[in-house]
């Protein structure tokens, strides 16, 4: 792993963290409507995975999708505008956090239905195979999603079709308040790969390099026609299930548990390493951070100044006019 890549990884994770922290602040201050799910603490996964992707590759996301969109190249300002419900947002204000999409960069949507993207991703992969392109699909979802029928049918069909889809479980130990032990009897969710005859692997989801390595193997195999794979990344969300959740997740989690995972912060981990190895300096990192803050302020200004959709947009894009 060369240093440049590791710096990119750090930058990518910091970029997500900065976004999540800013929008949380804005949300709690009442500037952002609706509900949204922060991925603070889970940044290594989208960054590690998306660094294996090429421009034309596809991404399907979940309800906890800001990090995915950012890692694939989403821009603060259009995301912010969407979160504000403005016409200049990625989904023209129609979608909000749960329905971000940016098709031009391959982001085929976050999803408000847990597990909803999993079978869809199989089909996107099929299109890629059918059209003899080498575009791969990365599909992110939570541990809870792995308990849905959509997961089973989607992974099995992907395996039967041998399509280039990499399924990534972001196992953050909970589905809202329900802990893993009430959700299934497994230690590692990646054992389920065997149920579909596809390769499966569990990695430390807070180690961006480990995520990258596993994803890279899977992406290369998929691109070469080797079919889908399942990767489980063990991680933790620092905050409540959604922004503004009462007691920010403490109703069903212990402070010690949260603290112990914060110790394993994926950003601090890489940062410490890079600093120790003198690959970056504190000043470099501060500069990055300032850059993000600056960009975020511009994004907020953009969102603020952008117009809301017109009332006439309500019935627009329900149907496409027939020729």
């Amino acid at each position, binding site marked *: 792993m060369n240093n440049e890549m590791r710096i990119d990884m750090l930058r990518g994770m910091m970029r997500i963290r900065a976004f999540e922290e800013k929008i949380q602040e804005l949300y709690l201050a009442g500037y952002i*409507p*609706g*509900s949204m799910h922060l991925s603070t603490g889970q940044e290594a996964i989208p960054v590690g995975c998306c660094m294996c992707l090429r421009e034309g590759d596809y991404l399907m996301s979940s309800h906890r999708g800001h990090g995915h969109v950012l890692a694939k190249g989403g821009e603060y300002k259009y995301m912010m505008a969407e979160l504000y*419900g*403005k*016409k200049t947002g990625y*989904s023209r*204000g*129609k*979608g*909000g956090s*749960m*329905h971000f999409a940016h098709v031009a960069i391959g982001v085929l949507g976050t*999803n*408000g*239905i*847990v*597990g909803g993207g999993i079978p869809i991703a199989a089909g996107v992969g099929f299109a890629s195979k059918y059209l003899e392109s080498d575009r791969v699909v990365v599909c992110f979802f939570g541990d*809870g*999603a792995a*308990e*849905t*029928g*959509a997961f089973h049918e989607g992974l099995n069909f992907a395996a039967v079709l041998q399509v280039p889809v990499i399924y990534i479980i972001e196992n953050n130990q909970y*589905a*809202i*308040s*329900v802990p893993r032990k*009430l*959700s*299934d009897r497994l230690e590692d969710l990646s054992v389920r790969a065997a149920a579909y005859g596809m390769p499966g692997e569990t990695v430390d989801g807070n180690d961006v390099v480990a995520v990258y390595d596993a994803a890279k193997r899977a992406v290369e195999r998929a691109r070469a026609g080797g079919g889908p794979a399942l990767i489980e990344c063990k991680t933790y969300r620092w905050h409540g299930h959604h922004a503004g959740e009462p007691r920010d997740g403490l*109703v*069903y989690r212990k402070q010690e548990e949260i603290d112990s995972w914060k110790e394993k912060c994926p950003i601090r981990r890489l940062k410490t390493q890079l600093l120790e190895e003198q690959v970056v300096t504190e000043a470099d990192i501060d500069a990055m951070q300032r850059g993000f803050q600056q960009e975020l302020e511009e994004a907020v200004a953009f969102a603020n100044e952008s117009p*809301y*959709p017109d*009332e006439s*947009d*309500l*019935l627009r894009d*329900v149907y496409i006019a027939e020729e």
Partner: protein
Amino acid sequence: MRQISLREALNESLRYNLQHDERVFCWGEDIGVLGGAFGVTAGLIDEFGPMRIIDTPLSEIAIVGAGIGAALGGLRPVVEIMYIDFTPGCMDMIVNQMAKIHYMFGGQCRVPMVLRIVTGAMGENAAQHSQSFYSFFVHVPGLIVVTPSTPYDAKGLLNTSIASDNPVIFVEHKRTVNIKGEVPEDHYTIPFGKAEVKREGTDITLVATQALMHDALKVAEDLEKEHVSIEVIDPRTLKPFDKETIFQSVEKTGRLIVADEGWIHCGMASEISALVAEEMITYLDGPIVRVGTPDSPCPFSPPLEKAYIPGEEEIREAIKKLI
């Protein structure tokens, strides 16, 4: 009399039934420690323990399917699906099993199960968390469909639902859970299939469900000042449906508006309109006007959502068409 919220009224009914019938238990996502996404099951796990108040995996098919099985095995499950929007994920269990088992096995088995679901648009939750398509449950034979609008009705009807040997879809509207009203502390039931005239009037019959019932009352009060006398009727259960109460009112007023938050086409407003057009047309002095949700998915952006959700304004416009 004591005033409590609709949420508290439901909680009280659950507690009573759990106390008085060992066969009653509850399961669903996050109904335990978290007390449910809308707080209806708050505190129950402390009183009744995790064997009777059960947090489930993120598996709607299993939640409903195993609920049916538990009912067949002699229990009386009260099952929660967090949002009506997630029922399409378990629709087979509802439509092909829950609704039909009693009939297709010639009356041998009973499915005394209550399926509690939350309906309605509120708080910019966008297309996949704002729906109200319970008319589908009315369409499919075999299900009871209950739609209370007040705390009093909610408690009485939930008691009736849990006592019923039929499968019941119990619909709770987001915009009503915090509404307060008088509720006796004692146990009582309200029969299915009995509408209630919530306000008497002589000029227009306004049939309205759930959140729109409250809007209807407000509009009716305002228009009183303008000397328009509106009779507001709440069907309370959509199946069985009390058409007599509505027919009697139409006989008196000659004018009918139906307000229901479902989408218009093939929704409950259409059904009530058709019932009257079939049996009471000679009493009508004007068109039957439907108030419902426009024919689009629910948009995220606040001004669009506002335009999307039917309420007082839409009722007023409907009235204008008749006077």
